[in-house]
């Protein structure tokens, strides 16, 4: 039987924050493997360490101990600039607060990662248009974020996460700042992307959002409490 190589391979990960004399263990001995094409939800209440895990998976932060292989690269050994490169090419971020550049059109926001990858203007234009069409925003490409609803802004952010064709899409509470009907749309887009083969790792504290994933990992006090596949995956529908 063919055993696929994991895209995310984390083993014995610990993260300790030090504030003065007080040590806070945010993660302890966490090991996770995520294969290509999975849709994983990482759940936990606030303080469970899920954000810390997300930041380490996103190569935004480094663990205190343990190893992290992302698509075959040992993240620990990389310099700041190499990490920037990894984030640029391998990871697509979707943030709770969207984090779009203000006063910048949707399409220019989507182009931003490609600017840092030094991709030619014509290719940028083509790819950005393409991904914005995929998230259903072809008619709003020139709108600035303040002219878009929360759900639309998050779709721009998803388009931006997609545009570099990353190995994984990391979503941190992607529905946390938007209305529930629009949250449904975002989930529908994620499921569609997952169907097309994208690997998605999503952090949430909402049960019914996590239900849209194929696998759910529960974190509690920095330790993995459960890790099982979701038998009853909820299917979100795109309202035309």
């Amino acid at each position, binding site marked *: 039987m063919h055993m696929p190589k994991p895209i995310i391979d984390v083993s014995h990960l610990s993260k300790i924050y030090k504030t003065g004399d007080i040590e806070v263990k945010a993660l302890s001995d966490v090991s996770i493997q995520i294969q290509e094409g999975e849709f994983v939800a990482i759940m936990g209440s606030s303080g469970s360490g899920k954000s810390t895990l997300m930041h380490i998976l996103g190569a935004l932060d480094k663990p205190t101990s343990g190893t992290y292989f992302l698509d075959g690269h040992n993240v620990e050994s990389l310099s*700041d600039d190499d990490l920037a490169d990894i*984030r640029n090419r391998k990871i697509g971020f979707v*943030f709770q607060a969207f984090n779009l550049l203000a006063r910048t059109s949707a399409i220019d926001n989507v182009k931003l990662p490609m600017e840092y990858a030094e991709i030619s203007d014509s290719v940028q234009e083509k790819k950005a248009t393409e991904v914005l069409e995929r998230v259903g925003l072809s008619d709003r490409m020139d709108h600035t974020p303040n002219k878009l609803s929360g759900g639309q802004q998050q779709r721009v952010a998803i388009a931006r996460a997609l545009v570099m064709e990353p190995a994984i899409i990391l979503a941190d509470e992607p529905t946390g700042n938007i209305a529930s009907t629009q949250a449904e749309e975002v989930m529908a887009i994620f499921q569609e992307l997952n169907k097309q083969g994208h690997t998605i790792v999503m952090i949430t504290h909402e049960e019914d959002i996590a239900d849209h994933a194929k696998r759910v990992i529960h974190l509690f006090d920095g330790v993995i409490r459960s890790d099982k596949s979701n038998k009853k995956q909820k299917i979100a529908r795109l309202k035309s």
Partner: protein
Amino acid sequence: MKFSKLVLNGFKSLTVNKMRTGLAVLGIVIGIGSVIALVSMGEASKLSVQSQIQSIGSNLLTISPGAQTSGGVRGAQGGATTLTNDDAEAIKTSAEVTTVKSVSPEYSSRAQVIAGRNNTNSQIVGVEPAYVDVRKIEVTAGSFITDSQLTRNSKVAVLGPSVAEDLFGEGVNPIDQKIKINGNEFQVIGITKSKGGSGPTSTDDYIFVPLTTAQKQLFGAKHLTSIALEATSENVMTRAQNQVGYLLLARHGFSDPSEADFRISSQEDLLETITSVTGTFTTLLSGVAAISLLVGGIGIMNIMLMSVTERTREIGLRKALGAKKKSIIQQFLIESIILTFTGGVIGVVLGIAGFYVYAQVNGSQFVVTAESVVLAFSVSVGIGILFGWYPANQAANLQPIDALKYE
């Protein structure tokens, strides 16, 4: 990212806070503007002084009275009355003085001059005909003082163009008109050509009368206030200075040149002195301007630091999306260079405009050197780099996670 895009993005983010951007630019505008204006003014005054001195003649030596020592008490510089007509005569006739072409003994003093209803206070200069050659004077109307007028103590006067205008108004021919100097009536016989400049050193403001008339009838003096000499060529200036110097020392009974009661100066000396004075002045002004430029630069740094703090989350996002340290430094450095470059352009324009106004008002030369413009530009861009570097580096060194979480 491409340079053109970096610049475009820089402009875009600077227009977000127009007031702040404007004020930051203003600091640089004032700095660069004052550098350009003040340095140009300094240059121009140096040039005008030089050309004025050159117009007097480069073969010219001037003997002026020094301090007179009587009974062990040394008087004021220039106060000596020991320079006499005989001295001038001796220079003319001495066999030892071989390098002097012509000699112009002069007696000059200020006096009130009246013509009809107009009156003015003017420099009256008693001269011999040789004055024209030695001092490079040209007569535009009428004639200059002649030998026969000199011997006859004639009451004739040649006016400088400024005095002529003051006394008779513009467009009136003063030739053959009468003027009164200290109550004595004089007939105007000529007008000299303008040499430019103004004030007590400009011959445009002089009234020339025969030396004999000035000494005997106007001022009752037996001495001279100066003797001007024309050397045979520029190359023998030092020799001429020495020959005349020793002759006069012997005549005045001094053996030590340091005790001399006269001074011989060449235009070269004067030029050097004035150039060094204007040079000091220019340096001083430039220093003041440089300080305002420094203050402007600190303003830029302040704005950029504020901007970095304000946009910490944006920096975090950019890093999350793959921006390297270099890209972040570029972004902020370009913004500060845009600020200072814009300030530089406006500053150069305003500085030149300010200098133009100054030149118009003061009638000085309007010369803007390419060097000062290039210097101002490179300094302004340099300030952008210098004061933009620290904030840009601060931004680039932020950890992506800290920057993203920044509230």
